[in-house]
């Protein structure tokens, strides 16, 4: 069980080498196969996640959620996906056509790129980058451009407002997000995500860095544009924010990307604070799936509990509370580390 996927990958490489390919090209083919797997995982995950989200929201609101199609409404999302695939792709006439059309594509590409560095099990990482965490944060910051493209390209005031809010919010919350993760990096002594996982062999970093965890969680919610920080979408005032003009598959791509980001951020949270793929008994890849899903459930729980926060409160919360707290945590961690070293406990 533990080595299923690594064994498959090794077998594939061996087979390719047996066909006479050089090691570099075999690795290249393996990389492509891994990407395809990631895209598949992302798509299937989104189908499950949308169903889960609707179920969770229903339960919280004393409803049943989808329960018509299949057992417990499990096929509802599949039906929705088919509907979206077959829908007409409407491009409004006065949009900035190329920007409008390519924005969802870039958005989904950026979201899928996040998965390159996430350790999805023992030795199951597409690229074990020595600055994996920085990679995650910087690639994540690119999604602001995609949202801005969508908002600008739509040539619609709601879209533009939504995009501007999204960008302002994402840029503001990126800073506390990165700084809160720095505390973990200081303890682990590496930006390599697999090193960070290994460093949590004895104790999860959520226990060593509780403040960092809380700030990360809040900032990540804002980065994902999820409730209670879903100002960019704010259905009641902006219809759907930057996605207002999108239809059919392009809209579905945005949706896909949002949930892809959710999974990625939750997986990063599990990796950084909850010991990643480490856990007793079960295989490593199952552990990270369990942890990621539990964190996502908490995200959903928060989304359906709290009301939306006003835009200026959102911004002042980021700059006046979250950023000082995460900076203080950074300083505290530094002093703590030195203190521990001085006492000889580290």
């Amino acid at each position, binding site marked *: 069980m533990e080595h299923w996927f690594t064994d498959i990958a090794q077998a594939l490489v061996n087979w390719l080498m047996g066909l006479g390919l050089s090691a*570099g090209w075999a690795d*290249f083919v393996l990389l492509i196969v891994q990407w395809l797997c990631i895209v598949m995982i992302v798509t299937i995950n989104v189908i499950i996640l949308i169903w889960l989200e609707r179920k969770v929201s229903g339960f919280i609101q004393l409803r049943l959620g989808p329960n018509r199609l299949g057992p417990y409404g499990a096929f509802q999302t599949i039906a929705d996906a088919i509907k979206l695939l077959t829908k007409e792709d409407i491009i409004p006439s006065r949009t*900035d056509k*190329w*920007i409008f059309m390519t924005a969802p594509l870039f958005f989904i590409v950026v979201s899928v790129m996040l998965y390159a560095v996430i350790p999805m099990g023992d030795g199951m990482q597409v690229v074990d*980058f*020595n*600055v994996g965490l*920085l*990679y995650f*944060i*910087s*690639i994540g*910051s*690119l999604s*602001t*451009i995609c949202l*801005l*493209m969508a908002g*600008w390209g739509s040539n619609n005031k709601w879209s*533009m407002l939504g995009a*501007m809010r999204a*960008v302002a919010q994402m*840029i503001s919350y*990126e800073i506390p997000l990165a700084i809160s993760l720095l505390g973990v990096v200081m303890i682990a002594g590496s*930006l390599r995500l697999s090193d960070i996982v290994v460093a949590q062999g004895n104790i999860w970093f959520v226990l060593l860095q509780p403040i960092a965890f809380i700030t990360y969680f809040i900032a990540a919610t804002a980065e994902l544009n999820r409730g209670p920080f879903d100002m960019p979408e704010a259905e009641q005032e902006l219809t759907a924010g930057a996605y207002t003009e999108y239809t059919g598959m392009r809209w579905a791509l945005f949706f896909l990307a949002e949930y892809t980001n959710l999974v990625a951020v939750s997986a990063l949270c599990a990796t950084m604070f909850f010991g990643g793929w480490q856990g007793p008994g079960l295989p490593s890849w199952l552990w990270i799936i369990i942890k990621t899903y539990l964190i996502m459930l908490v995200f959903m729980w928060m989304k359906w509990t709290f009301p939306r926060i006003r835009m200026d409160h959102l911004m002042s919360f980021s700059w006046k509370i979250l950023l000082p707290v995460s900076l203080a945590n950074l300083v505290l961690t530094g002093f703590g580390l030195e203190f521990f070293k001085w006492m000889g406990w580290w």
Partner: protein
Amino acid sequence: MDISLADLAFIILAGFTLLTALGVVLFKNIVHSAIMLVFSFLGVAGIYFTMHAGFLGLVQILVYAGAISVLIIFAIMLVMNQDPEKTNLPSPNIPNIMAGTYLTILLVGALVGSIWFTSFPEKVAPVSGDELGLLTGLMLGDYVIPLELAALLLLVAVVGAIILARGAEHK
């Protein structure tokens, strides 16, 4: 000629960067130019990656593509009040064109000259082991004072910008 995978990657990335940079200059819509600028930054970041400077490439993406370009796009959007298709036309002013041409010749000349007169070693020895650690050692060890000075400069710039935007209080 023998082309390795790394060479191929460099050629593709350099071509991409140049094309997008040309796009920045030639597009008539300045928003398109700004988005091309983002791609150009990404291309430069890709070149850093091929040279095993992952940290630098990621900082390039985070700071330039993720933040600075958004600022540029915001600034463009906020001040633009005419037909977007005519926002990035060449200047009709002859002295402007002359100045631009002069500057271009100067820059290209300086670049070509510096490449021409520098003696590149045949093969740079690859950085052994932890290139990130080396970079950190340089930045926070030998060059910590310039780094902190640069940070101070940026801080002063931010404070100045806020004062300009909000207006200083006169007592």
